[in-house]
């Protein structure tokens, strides 16, 4: 690989590009398909992979608009996709802000403040962060079922309940941000201390501004994590108008009401923004991810 003959090299190059192109064709096939399906007539495979009579019907429906077919029949949107999107974004933003606030301050404490039993707490945290919240689903259901009797705003089918559960993502991110704070030179806080800053001021005026990049990473990761959650939302949310995208989208592929074409348009519409955000942020995300979080 270091010293190579030109002929071998050319062959190797062709092989490498050939492999890449074949692999990409396989991997990207679903994306081509879903775009094609979203413009195809009807909700079933028609025997051709390319839409013969392209139609915007599914796209109208995905945007929540009625569509009038050529024969005059009016089709109404089957599900409120935009409302689901709004629910997902709202829950995602609030939960991410909460997670960010809690995990940043805890990470600072674990990195810099001397307190008895810290190592024990850190080890405990590391072990706990491997337990996914979805394992406690039964308890989560029971707890919010009971809390619902106190106040429906905190019970089953409320967004507040869902956001509270998503706050449990902090364990992962305390770890991520702590790793970042640990790499900050201690001379900085020494200097602040000599100038008379309290630990809170050190945190507020020195660490917080420094942490903006990693906080952005944690924010995006939490947001994506929340948007992608299916199990918790499916247990806590019952009515159609409260659903998040992940729970709602599943309704499209019900065996008795199979809306493949409508799903395709809705999936692209809702998936595109998140995909774009992810691609823009990916370079920063990966460094944060390798600190401990796993997505796939």
């Amino acid at each position, binding site marked *: *690989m270091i*010293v190579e003959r030109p002929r071998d090299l050319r062959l190797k*190059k062709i092989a490498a590009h050939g492999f*890449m192109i074949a692999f*990409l064709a396989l991997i990207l096939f*679903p994306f081509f398909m*879903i775009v094609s399906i979203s413009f195809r007539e009807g909700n079933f495979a028609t*025997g051709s992979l390319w839409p013969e009579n392209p139609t915007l019907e599914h796209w109208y429906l995905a945007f929540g608009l009625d569509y009038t077919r050529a024969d005059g029949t009016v089709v109404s949107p089957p599900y409120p996709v935009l409302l689901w999107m709004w629910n997902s974004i709202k829950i995602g933003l609030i939960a991410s802000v909460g997670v960010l606030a*809690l995990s940043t301050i805890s990470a600072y*404490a674990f990195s*810099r*403040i001397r*307190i008895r039993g810290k190592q024990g*707490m850190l080890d405990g*945290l*590391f*072990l*706990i962060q491997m*337990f996914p*919240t979805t*394992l*406690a*689903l*039964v*308890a*989560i*259901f*029971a707890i919010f079922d*009971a809390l619902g009797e*106190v106040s429906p705003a905190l019970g089953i089918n409320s967004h507040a309940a869902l956001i509270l559960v998503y706050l*449990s993502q*902090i*364990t992962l991110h305390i770890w991520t941000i702590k790793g970042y704070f*640990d790499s900050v030179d201690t001379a900085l*806080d*020494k200097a602040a201390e000599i100038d008379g800053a*309290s*630990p*809170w001021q050190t*945190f507020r005026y020195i660490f917080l501004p420094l942490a903006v990049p990693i906080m952005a990473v944690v924010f995006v990761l939490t947001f994506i994590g929340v948007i*992608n*959650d*299916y*199990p918790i939302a*499916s*247990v806590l949310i019952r009515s159609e108008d409260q659903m998040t995208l*992940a729970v709602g989208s599943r309704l*499209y*592929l019900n065996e008795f009401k*199979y809306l493949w074409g409508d799903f*395709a348009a809705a*999936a692209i519409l*809702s*998936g595109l923004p*998140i*995909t774009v955000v992810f*691609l823009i942020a990916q370079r920063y995300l*990966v460094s944060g*991810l390798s600190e401990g979080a796993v997505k*796939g």
Partner: protein
Amino acid sequence: MTTVDAGLGPTDTPTEPRPWLRLGLVAVIGMAMLYGAFFLYQIAQPLFGAILLAVATGFVVIFGANRFYGARFIFPGVAAVLVFIAFPVAYTIWLGFTNYSSFNLLSYERTIEVLTSRGTVDPDTEQPFAVARDGDGYRIWLPESELLSEPVLLTAEEETVTLAPGAVPLELLSPRDAIALRSGLQSLTLTTPDEIDLRNAGLRSFASVTPDFVRSGENELTRSSDGLKLIANHETGFFETPDGEAVPPGWRVGVGFDNFERIFESKGVRGPMLSIFLWTFAFAGLSVLGVFTVGLTLAVILQWEHLRFKTLYRILLILPYAVPGFISILVFRGLFNQNFGEINLILDALFGLRPSWFTDGNLARTMILFVNIWLGYPYMMLLAMGFLQAVPQDHKKAAALEGASSLRVFFTITLPQIIPPFLPLLIAAFAFNFNNLVLILLLTRGGPDIPGTVIPAGETDILASFTYRLAFQDSGQQFGLAGAITLLIFLVVAAISYANFVAMRRAAAKRSGR
């Protein structure tokens, strides 16, 4: 590491400008939480009350006393971890020792309320009604017997009013508005001039209702139809007749290790459990192996110095990772659909094959692994690219000069160097897939079902999805049994988690030792 020393005493605590403001705030918030705890206790939620009380105490002590200055930073995070993770986990395990299910759903008090509120409607007295507005309240009009009630408020509290002959009120509410007042109507008793009590017996009628059960003692109900005394059995969580017949609904009681006995002793449960257990390990292991191999291979090719269009390839290769997982999984669910899916359309056109991806166990498993590798390889690829960069070039050069082939260089020089830092991440990926509920629930829901089992169990079910199905789908909400299985999953995850802990420590020690 030098740390800010802030936990030792008042001398180290920085002076704050307005201590009274903080103390005032702490007092107000503390009082609010105490009131909340008291309220929860009053409405029979002592457990939540106790938790709120504990949080309130911790809050007041740590934010009130100066000597705990350092702990103020840790408190929010630790409290959140305890309340949002440790408590639900402990609660799940506790539920594993109860008979909580759709048959034993309620508390004891609620069970009695439900049973005593049941009644038999006397059809002779049943008659339609209408509601008329009367100032702030309402009057009930019974057109068949031409009786009109005294004004009532129709709040949810119990009310008893008398009926008297009267004329049709002018303003009758529409049936829809009357239904909206349902909760008030249900707690209303109307007394006719003949001293018969009429109660709401449906959406549209009032009738004389005889309660089916009357509470006749501390742990005793009397059944009106035959006068039998039902005794509360706190072992099974049901009211039982003298000959042992249980009257549903029941309430939640502790059942010790019964759920675990069912898992290990009952044949109909043990059989599918074992196969699900094995598949869970196989699924997680093969997934990690698959994503690691594919990801590493791609990373090695992408690292090759002579390759052009690297950035383009890289962006296209991570696309599966960038799309929200639930959307990709559902897309595959549609593409793989046996009858309407594009994959079978192509396979049929090319080879005349229509594999039954969702009804054949092995094909379903293959499909799941394929989709999971599709979803997961970009992450491994990105990680591998980072780790590959850290391998010193001169090691590889030296080996190449000695005449080693590139494959040999890879397996003897590169791989051994990237495995140790990779290991914790691989273990974490294993743990993640071990509980990869989203994939299974959205793709197959565990199906196809294993034939001949007492409880619904599928060929592609992993332990977590099996538990989910037991608790939340078509099998009588067996929360207790689900909790017991969750405890078993916890044990496995704890072992994995500990292994990861050790691997992480080792990797860290190696790094600092270098």
